[in-house]
């Protein structure tokens, strides 16, 4: 684990995350017991270590946004369940960190999101991710509403990127 000196201590990053998602303020209650890491499925197969991530955040170390580790979380909520403290929501912290990472351009590249392109496309054109087994289709007006809700969301950019790519191919 990386070592820090006291002079490197700062709350700026923590405050930014709390401003975005108020619930993140609770990570300060973390007692580093390690139960989340011991029970984490991602920790068994990758370098993902939530204790290390929380430590970096509390130290104001923004390199955590560049780490590939944050993209290995399974969002299974096991950590939330086994944490002895009451209100620490680690999956929400991870989602928040991924958001910050995206904003800074460190997130997964278009290629890593390629599997989502199809899903995004189907959702924005049919309202479902997979075809409804009984063929009951969502009315067009409802699909338009979903597109309206998703305005300016990344899902729209993923969708647009897929259309542009297709045009180029043609």
């Amino acid at each position, binding site marked *: 684990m990386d070592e820090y000196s006291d002079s490197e201590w700062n709350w700026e990053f923590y405050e930014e995350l709390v401003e975005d998602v*108020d*619930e993140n303020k609770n990570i300060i209650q973390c007692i580093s017991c390690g139960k989340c890491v011991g029970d984490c*499925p*991602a920790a*068994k*197969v*990758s370098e993902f270590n939530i204790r290390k991530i929380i430590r970096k955040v509390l130290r104001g170390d923004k390199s955590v946004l560049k780490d590939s580790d944050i*993209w*290995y*979380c*399974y*969002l*299974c*909520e*096991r950590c*939330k*369940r086994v944490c*002895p403290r*009451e209100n620490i929501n680690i999956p929400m912290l991870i*989602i928040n960190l*991924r*958001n910050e990472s*995206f904003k800074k351009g460190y*997130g*997964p590249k278009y290629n*890593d*999101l390629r*599997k*989502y392109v199809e*899903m*995004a496309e189907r*959702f924005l054109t049919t*309202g*479902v*991710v*997979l*075809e*409804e*087994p*009984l063929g*009951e289709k*969502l*009315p067009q007006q*409802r699909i*338009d*509403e*979903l597109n*309206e*809700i*998703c305005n300016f*969301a*990344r*899902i729209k950019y*993923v969708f647009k990127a897929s259309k542009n790519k297709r045009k180029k191919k043609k």
Partner: protein
Amino acid sequence: METYNLALNIEEIERNFQENPLEFFKDKKLCLFKACLEKYFPGVRWGIHDLLESLQLEVSTCKNQSCCTGTFFQRNLITRAQFAAINERNINEINQQADILLFSCNGCYNSLLRGREFLKIPQVKKKTQEILDQLKKNVKRETYPRMYDILENPKVRFIHDLDFLYLIRNDVINSLKFDLSDFKVAVHYGCHYLNLSRDKRSVNHYLKDKSKLEELITLFGGTPVDYQERESCCGWGASQLLINPREALKITANKLLSAQNVGADFIITPCPTCLYTLSKPEYREKMNKWFNEKLDIPTIHLNELVALLRGCEEERCITLRRKTPRIEEIFEIITQQ
């Protein structure tokens, strides 16, 4: 007072309808939330639909329901407010036609509970209503009053199929033609059922194992078997299987192997997403190739198993349009009784 948590109060039903909890549902309109993964396992929907009809309950699906979008929220493709707005739009529509909403998928169940939970945060709630107000502008004529308002106290309540089937277990058992004698069954709850918030102020509640699946298996005449990876993730992990397949499938392989090693005949799960991960032949082949593990253990959804034990016509309830060797083996042994 605003109600954010729309989960049905199961304890209250157990208290008030001790003799027969099914009575609670008799005068209610039930709706099945359509899960995306039911595309691959239509028997998951048919299984519960057929049972409810046979119990003479009023059941429907909602034509205007969209995907729960949990997968997009978890991958940062939509914001909390957008996720909550999609959720509220669905709840608005379903609230018009149903009192009880049933979920066959842990992911959808968790998403709808989580979407409502986000509304407790004032700025998310405000933003969500702003988004919904945009939709209202485009609606020429409201099909019902207060269309697309955030409902402070909707009548609709949510229940997971596992909790529902457990609640009415006596009626389910009475409807069975076959049983699970001679079967050893490994249970897989799935993270978004197993890890749903627990009351940490109560030691008993915090530490208590969830055991409804094991109890149902016992009631069906089978023997639930404990295995080391009982509580582990199926490997799907909010699409980790798509993005980091080797690591994710290692988790899947460990789970299947662990159940196989204790002699389980099959794995039962109450979630079609977990079922997809645990059963997809392509994944089994990859696990064989990458980890040199031959994993043959069959898997089945709880709703499919109930349909099968009820003697429900195989073609309709289990495979519908899609023939699969997945549960053929279980089907043949059970129906030979």
